[in-house]
């Protein structure tokens, strides 16, 4: 691909989710939809630079891809088995094509396509990998690199995932309200996990995994465009943007920098203000949800000029609200960290006691506990908590961090 065609590639990538959704509806076949979209893009590369962009590039690509798909089916003599579907799809080729290609038609198709990728038999990683391949159009090599696995491995995983979803029976009729809601929640969770996977990097691979975050942002944007009134979707996109706004500040010389120590002038203010705008909109709906609250927590940090200026009371309240909606030990642990800032380490430590069983194998539990104990001047107990964390497979970076803390404990035990 030459550089002069970059503008076309950007268009194709932008158009792809809508086109793929329409083609999958028509052919009910992910592989075929993907292949004929690729064929249509090759034809466009031939024509568009000379003849100029068609009036409606999306309609053009869908029409050409649809014809290519029929040709393939004819060649494979599968036309009979699919003929019923072709009849249904042919309405897309009518004169009124532009009117039909609006959000109303596409939104459920795109949601369905993403939902198909979220097959319950697939691991969250494989769900994301499939969505990235099919919907976002990333190459297998790009996906493999973002997930830090070999290309060959990723290729096999995606192929297996495609087989799994091909057997699934996802209704193609327009979903009812409840079904649509359920699909949206499933897809939002997939994007949330994908973003976290991309974000949970070490300093050395933070940049490599970033595409997972960027694609999650793109897909969240697309969904919000299609379903503009869903406040949790606004919250999800806001949460992504707020975290992503810190991407430059959180890595320095190959090390991850904790939030409190980041150079805030490097935070992306455009993303922060967009997230704030989304949260303002979401708030008007008065239907709080876990993504909105998490975004609100991130926003409190984003709006503090320095770490000392952080409004911990607000964060503590938000975690309390989050725990009401999502009463999990991990949320409680995070709440305890906020309580430590507001009410001191003893109050936080008291909150941890009931969690010691459920979070025993969670290393952040032990590091949080250790830091509260240190603040309470109990270095011996703190040291033993840090040692427990060391046994729970920390990354090399975390290990360095914990080792440092243990040395600090030892120093206060033996000041000489």
């Amino acid at each position, binding site marked *: 691909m030459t550089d002069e065609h*970059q503008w076309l*590639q*950007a268009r194709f990538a*932008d158009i792809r989710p809508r086109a793929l959704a329409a083609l999958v509806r028509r052919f009910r076949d992910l592989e075929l939809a993907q292949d004929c979209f690729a064929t249509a893009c090759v034809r466009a590369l031939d024509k568009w630079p000379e003849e100029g*962009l068609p009036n*409606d590039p999306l309609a053009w690509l869908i029409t050409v891809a649809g014809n290519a798909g029929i040709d393939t089916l004819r060649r494979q003599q599968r036309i009979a088995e699919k003929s019923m579907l072709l009849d249904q799809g042919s309405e897309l080729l009518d004169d009124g094509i532009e009117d039909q290609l609006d959000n109303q038609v596409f939104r459920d198709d795109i949601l369905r396509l993403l939902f198909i990728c979220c097959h319950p038999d697939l691991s969250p990683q494989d769900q994301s990998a499939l969505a990235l391949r099919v919907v976002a159009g990333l190459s297998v090599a790009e996906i493999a690199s973002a997930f830090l696995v070999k290309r060959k491995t990723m290729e096999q995983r995606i192929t297996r995932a495609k087989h799994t979803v091909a057997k699934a029976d996802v209704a193609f009729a327009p979903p009812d309200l409840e079904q649509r809601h359920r699909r949206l929640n499933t897809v939002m969770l997939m994007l949330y996990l994908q973003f976290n996977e991309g974000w949970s990097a070490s300093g050395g691979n933070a940049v490599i995994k970033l595409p997972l975050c960027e694609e999650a942002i793109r897909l969240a944007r697309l969904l919000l465009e299609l379903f503009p009134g869903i406040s949790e979707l606004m919250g999800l996109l806001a949460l992504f943007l707020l975290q992503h706004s810190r991407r430059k500040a959180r890595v320095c010389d190959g090390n991850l920098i904790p939030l409190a120590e980041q150079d805030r002038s490097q935070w992306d203010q455009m993303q922060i203000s967009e997230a704030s*705008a989304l949260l303002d*909109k979401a708030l*008007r709906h008065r239907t709080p949800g876990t993504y909105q609250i998490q975004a609100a927590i991130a926003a409190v940090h984003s709006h503090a000029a320095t770490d000392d200026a952080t409004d911990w009371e607000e964060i503590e309240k938000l975690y309390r609200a989050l725990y009401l909606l999502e009463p999990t030990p991990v949320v409680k642990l995070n709440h305890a960290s906020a309580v430590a800032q507001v009410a001191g380490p003893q109050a936080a430590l008291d909150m941890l006691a009931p969690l010691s069983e459920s979070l025993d194998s969670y290393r952040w539990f032990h590091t949080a506990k250790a830091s509260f104990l240190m603040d309470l001047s109990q270095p011996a107990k703190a040291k033993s908590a840090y040692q427990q964390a060391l046994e729970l497979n920390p990354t090399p970076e975390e290990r360095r961090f914990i080792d440092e803390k243990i040395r600090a404990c030892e120093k206060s035990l033996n000041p000489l």
Partner: protein
Amino acid sequence: MQYSLLIYGSEGIYERLCEEEQQQIMQGHYDLQAVLAERGEFSSAKLMSTTSAVTLQPTQAVAQPALVKDGPFAETKERLLGFYTFECDTLDDAIELANKLSSPYVRLEVRPVDWAGGVLAGL
């Protein structure tokens, strides 16, 4: 005559371009802004993504509280991405200025301004 230069395009395309091409596009804006600043007052805005927009629906009477709908005014493929307003002697001149922003990614609308307030009032 005061003119507005309205920039339409698909959202998210710019972000997909390589840094070099993004810089080329930004250079167009810097050039235009430099020329406009020499001529006098102008205004410009890059709009946030339409997902951040709300639309107030028409009401039964003037100045009634409107129903607020999430999303942009129209569900179109190309959106208003941003705009400039500036003083210009002729349409040809305005088109020449607009050409500083031309690219495969945007459609540019040049439209005269009937009335302007704020910093552009009385120009």
